[in-house]
């Protein structure tokens, strides 16, 4: 009967819930130093922007297949990550759950917290065998969520997800930055990341969805507010991130300028005032989309200057053959 309670983990909701959780876990384990926007930028998570056609609040976390998105994001930091998840209705769920309980405890024994899907992401930072519970932070409340081992993975959504962080290797910063902007280009240019679902758009098309919904007036108000707040926070993160790395390449300096301007446009976007508010909001969002499009143009220019072996479409037998 053992128990672990990692006191040094303190999650705070500011950015995307996944970044907030990752930041809390990594900083507590000494695997990342620096401000949150840097983490959000280097992982490319700040660039991810998805919008449901009715502006449902789920948009904020529906930026793709988590397994792919998060693995690539964390990989870019030079960190090992292993995740598990799936549908709770699957008959094998209980088996995976029991296995997950084992490795979650192992990670906590090592002193590293885990990222866990509550309804958005949170952090598992302790367990107690005697009561059979995990202690989980959601970043909003000071108090822990208590989750029975038997209830691990069960939430109001039909799926579960846990992400573990492992050891780190050093990666040159310019490689990380280059990869982060390449992931930004990919996010911006991919219209639907959750195909066959076409109700949630990503990147450039997400702006169109946002504007269309506002124009029609047929949208979820709470969701719209949440998407807007999250969107704005992410743009500020990108701005601050680019300001830090703009010395590396002139293209980044130009993109930073666009994001500076974008920041002014979206600073006072809000649903609080009625009347002409929505029309004004639509205009500002359209302007922001253009600025972001120009920034991504700069990113593409930069990306084209360097070889990108991980995304090349030229068939090379070494990378394509299992021999």
């Amino acid at each position, binding site marked *: 009967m053992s128990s672990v309670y990692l006191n040094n983990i303190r999650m705070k909701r500011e950015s995307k819930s996944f970044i907030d959780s990752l930041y809390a876990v990594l900083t507590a384990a000494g695997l990342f130093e620096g401000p949150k926007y840097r983490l959000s930028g280097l992982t490319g998570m700040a660039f991810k922007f998805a919008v449901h056609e*009715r502006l*449902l*609040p*789920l948009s904020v976390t529906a930026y793709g297949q988590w397994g792919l998105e998060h693995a690539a994001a964390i990989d870019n930091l030079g960190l090992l990550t292993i995740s598990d998840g799936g*549908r*709770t*209705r699957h008959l094998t*769920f*209980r088996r995976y759950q029991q296995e997950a309980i084992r490795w979650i405890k192992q990670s906590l024994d090592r002193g590293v917290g885990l990222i866990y899907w509550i309804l958005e992401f949170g952090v598992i930072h302790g367990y*107690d065998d*005697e*009561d059979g*519970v995990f*202690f989980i932070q959601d970043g909003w409340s000071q*108090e*822990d969520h*208590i989750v*029975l081992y*038997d*209830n691990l993975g*069960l939430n*109001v959504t*039909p799926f579960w997800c846990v992400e573990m962080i492992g050891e780190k290797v050093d990666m040159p910063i310019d490689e990380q930055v280059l990869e982060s902007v390449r992931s930004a280009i990919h996010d911006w240019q991919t219209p639907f990341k959750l195909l066959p679902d076409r109700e949630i758009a990503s990147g450039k098309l997400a702006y169109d969805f946002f504007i269309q919904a506002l124009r029609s007036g047929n949208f*979820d*108000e*709470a*969701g719209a507010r949440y998407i807007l707040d999250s969107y704005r926070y992410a743009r500020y993160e990108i701005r601050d991130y680019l300001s830090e790395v703009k010395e590396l390449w002139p293209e980044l300096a130009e993109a930073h300028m666009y994001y500076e301007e974008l920041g002014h446009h979206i600073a006072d976007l809000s649903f609080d005032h009625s009347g002409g508010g929505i029309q004004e909001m639509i205009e500002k969002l359209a302007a922001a989309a253009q600025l972001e499009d120009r920034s991504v143009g700069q990113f593409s220019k930069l990306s084209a200057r360097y070889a990108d072996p991980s995304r090349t479409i030229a068939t090379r037998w070494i990378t394509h053959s299992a021999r």
Partner: protein
Amino acid sequence: MSNTHRIQWFDQQIREARYPNSNHLAERFEISKRQAQRDIEYMAASLRAPLLYDAKRRGYSYNDSAYVLPHLFMSEDEKRVLRYLVHRYSQYDYDNADTTRRVARLLDRFTDESESEQYDRLPMFNADPRLMQLVLLLTEAIKHSYAVRLVYEGEQLTIQPTRLLTRYNDEYVAAYCDNGQEQRQFRLSSIAYAVMVGQTTATAATAAAVNPAACLDESGAPSRKPFTAKVRLRQPIDRGGTWDGFAATCLDDASLLYGVDFYDMNMFLRHLMMSDWEELLAPKWLREKLRLHCSDVLTRLDKER
């Protein structure tokens, strides 16, 4: 209807592919074979069960596995769930809304009432317990025409709720505000605090009595298990009963030790603050939460002096 339990058993046997026949039924319930045969006829004729006699297996099966026994077998709880679904579906306004409303009307016929009474106590779903508590409070207020004082997005208001609405993912309450005749809609998730005006009895106990039916999972996921607290009480509770709404099982008769199940921690903590008990033995985290809460209250009380 005295044959209900027999028909339910027969139905279950068929579903388990045991191919029951009138002999089995007669044996199981110690009734005559004739009576058993009448039950089966009743199922086929009145309940429209698609019964198919399999001569090889000498028993019945269903021709159409989608068949379910009709509403006369529905318990009160199930009816309430259905009424809630009717309410949700009829307010649904997204894609396939027409179909959904048609389903709502269809379900409505099963609720066995000329018009669905929405403002009965609602069943609990796999939802935020706080929100459900709010729904209970508001339905109660609507039913008895009580005013409700609430804090909505930082604004303190007294409202006269008229009905509950559902749009997309959100629940709203439509109400008249105290400052005029204007009717407004308030999003439930933005209500920080609500209390009924003119009613003093706490509704905590009644709310607690509603099982947050985690077992009612529409997606087919495994049901959520409750936390269990070990509590030593001062007075015994009725056998198989509840401790003011929380399901309790006796662990030790002599020392009045009970295992009390609960789903929502805050609701149970509130209950512990209000009711009479001797000792809280487990779980540790609950003791810790209660201790923190109490010391917090004490600190505040001391500050007031």
